[in-house]
């Protein structure tokens, strides 16, 4: 395969995964949430148990009028959804499903993924600032404050895993994984999960979009396709963080019969994590912004540092 064709194939494959996996998670959320609430969820679109509901939603969003508020900062307002969405696409390309199955095998893919996802929040900030709406502004401020609270524990937790594996490459980290990590890296895994949910602005950390307080936070003024992009970014974020969790803490493709089907294990583990993320939304109320800060600085950061120290000591002791 010539390099150009390979790049094309990889790009198309990543793009396809980027469009399909979030829809799968979204549909799972529709159905799991519905049944947890004693409902059926979508039942009509597509015939069988409403499987095409999100496709129908997408078509609906595409048909809607694309409104830009008169007082908005037009270029920023219109660019924001792209800024929110593209980083997740970039990050997804670097997440391996199995040793050979990865969009772009970067040597320091862990760093790349963290760096890329940190950019996504800029989209929310831009949207909130440019909307010329007080609720949007408050939502953006909350998002910015939230950024401070989760980014550090997230990086520290990943650093611990990198230290344990002795590599910054996600492929190598999953390769070095052993079931013993489940216990050893448990505090780090907990910190990562909590911080990831906070980064995704998912309940119980959905203060930036809290519908009962800020209408819809930074996305209040968005309609149509641009709004759909933000939604897609949220679900792409769930996919990314779930897969990342699977690769970092659950051994990715490792499992029984994982010869050629390792990628299936990664997807399966990621799916379980995303169901957990959905489950938290169904079961729990929302925290307050300052309570997240408190949790992050008094709980997550010390815990992540402790994990880092533990990992360091263990690595040195066994080296």
């Amino acid at each position, binding site marked *: 395969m010539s390099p150009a064709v390979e790049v094309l194939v990889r790009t198309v494959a990543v793009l396809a995964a980027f469009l399909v996996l979030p829809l799968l998670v979204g549909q799972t959320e529709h159905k799991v949430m519905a049944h947890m609430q*004693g409902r059926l969820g979508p039942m009509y679109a597509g015939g069988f148990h409403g499987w095409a509901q999100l496709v129908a939603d997408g078509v609906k969003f595409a048909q809607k009028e694309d409104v830009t508020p008169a007082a908005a900062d037009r270029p920023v307002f219109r660019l924001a959804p792209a800024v929110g969405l593209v980083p997740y696409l970039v990050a997804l390309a670097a997440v391996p499903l199995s040793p050979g199955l990865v969009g772009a095998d970067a040597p320091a893919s862990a760093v790349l993924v963290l760096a890329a996802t940190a950019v996504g929040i800029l989209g929310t900030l831009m949207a909130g600032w440019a909307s010329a709406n007080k609720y949007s502004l408050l939502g953006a401020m909350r998002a910015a404050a939230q950024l401070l609270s989760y980014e550090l524990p997230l990086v520290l937790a990943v650093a611990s895993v990198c230290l344990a594996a002795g590599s910054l490459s996600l492929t190598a980290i999953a390769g070095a994984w052993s079931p013993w990590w489940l216990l050893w890296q448990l505090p780090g895994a907990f910190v990562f999960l909590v911080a990831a949910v906070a980064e995704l602005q998912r309940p119980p950390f959905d203060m930036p979009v*809290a519908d009962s307080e800020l209408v819809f936070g930074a996305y209040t003024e968005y309609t149509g396709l641009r709004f759909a992009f933000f939604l897609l970014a949220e679900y792409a974020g769930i996919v990314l963080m779930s897969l990342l969790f699977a690769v970092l803490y659950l051994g990715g493709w490792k499992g029984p019969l994982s010869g050629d089907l390792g990628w299936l294990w990664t997807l399966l583990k990621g799916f379980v994590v995303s169901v957990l993320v959905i489950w938290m939304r*169904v*079961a729990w*109320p929302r*925290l307050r912004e300052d309570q997240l800060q408190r949790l992050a600085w*008094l709980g997550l950061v010390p815990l992540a540092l402790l994990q880092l120290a533990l990992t360091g000591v263990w690595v040195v002791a066994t080296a």
Partner: protein
Amino acid sequence: MGQTGEVTTTDGPRELTVGMGAGGLATADMVLNIGPQHPATHGVLRLRIVVDGERIITAEPVVGYMHRGAEKLFEVRDYRQIIVLANRHDWLSAFANELGVVLGVEQMLGLEVPERAVWARTLLAELNRVLNHLMFLGSYPLELGAITPIFYAFREREELQAVMEEASGGRMHYMFNRVGGLKEDLPAGWLDRVTHAVRAVRGRLPDLEALISGNEILEARTRGIGLLSPEAVAAYGVSGPIARASGVDMDLRRDAPYLAYPELFAPGGPGRVVTRTAGDCLARLEVLLEQVHVSLDLADACVERMRSLPQGPVNVRLPKVLKVPEGDLYTATENPLGFNGYYLVSRGEKTPWRLKLRSASFNNIGVLRELLPGALISDMVAILGSTFFVVGDIDK
């Protein structure tokens, strides 16, 4: 999830100093209109708040967006037509609203209501109370970001609404009270279905409670938030579950009993007044949650009692044109939201000369002006929800 009490309770204006550059960053307060169209105001209540960042400095409830002139309309309606309008101001407690009107008229007429009607009314009023409180138990967590309780609460509401509809024909606006009793007798086997529904609701309440009571996030959001002192309760005329959550032990069902409540709230009876002393959002939630259990017990007691009553009518024959003798009377009932009063002034006509409506929510939200300053916007939603108002009951 740690306690964050000290973050939220600040007295007086807060000094905000931002140490940036040489002279600090100038900050300006922002006026934020919450409502009249806003997800947290369930209806058209408007709050004009001045915020410093997210901290509320002043809050002013602006009411009247839904004013329908109910009191004026009462004056050109006869006593049956008034019920139609009266059950609508607080649309979550329609039966209790109807009750106040007919109790007042009956008292002024000196009408003796048949015993079966008295017990049936008590039963329906308590079922209505459960329906009302279930609405709160669904919508309040929703405002705090928990999306599931409302589905569980509505399932139970559906169970009770089915029996209410079977008897009265209405799901919200029952229109089942008439001067002198009820519109018509209860359907055969209805009491059994009430028992069944009450048992089903009681059996599934633990599911709802598992999502609400003892939830660490919910407690962190509500404990110590929106502290309402008994003095403020007295000053603003706050009543009902909100007053009782501040330790004000008053309940008209016990203190000025009507219907069959004297017997139910007698020593050894199933009735008891639920109170808390904390006066915060959590206390208000706990009072409303526990009142559901009390009301279900009361409903069971009413059903038991109705089974043992002798055969008899549920209403009395009235003249074709019902005229209330000249005079005036204030009738107060313990509605699910608090005191609900009708001041009826009659000049001997078939319509009242004046029918003043004292609704619970109107007084209960007045106190928001004191509760909100110093709170965060997130707390505002918690406080607003916990004062449990119905906009129609405010604006009338």
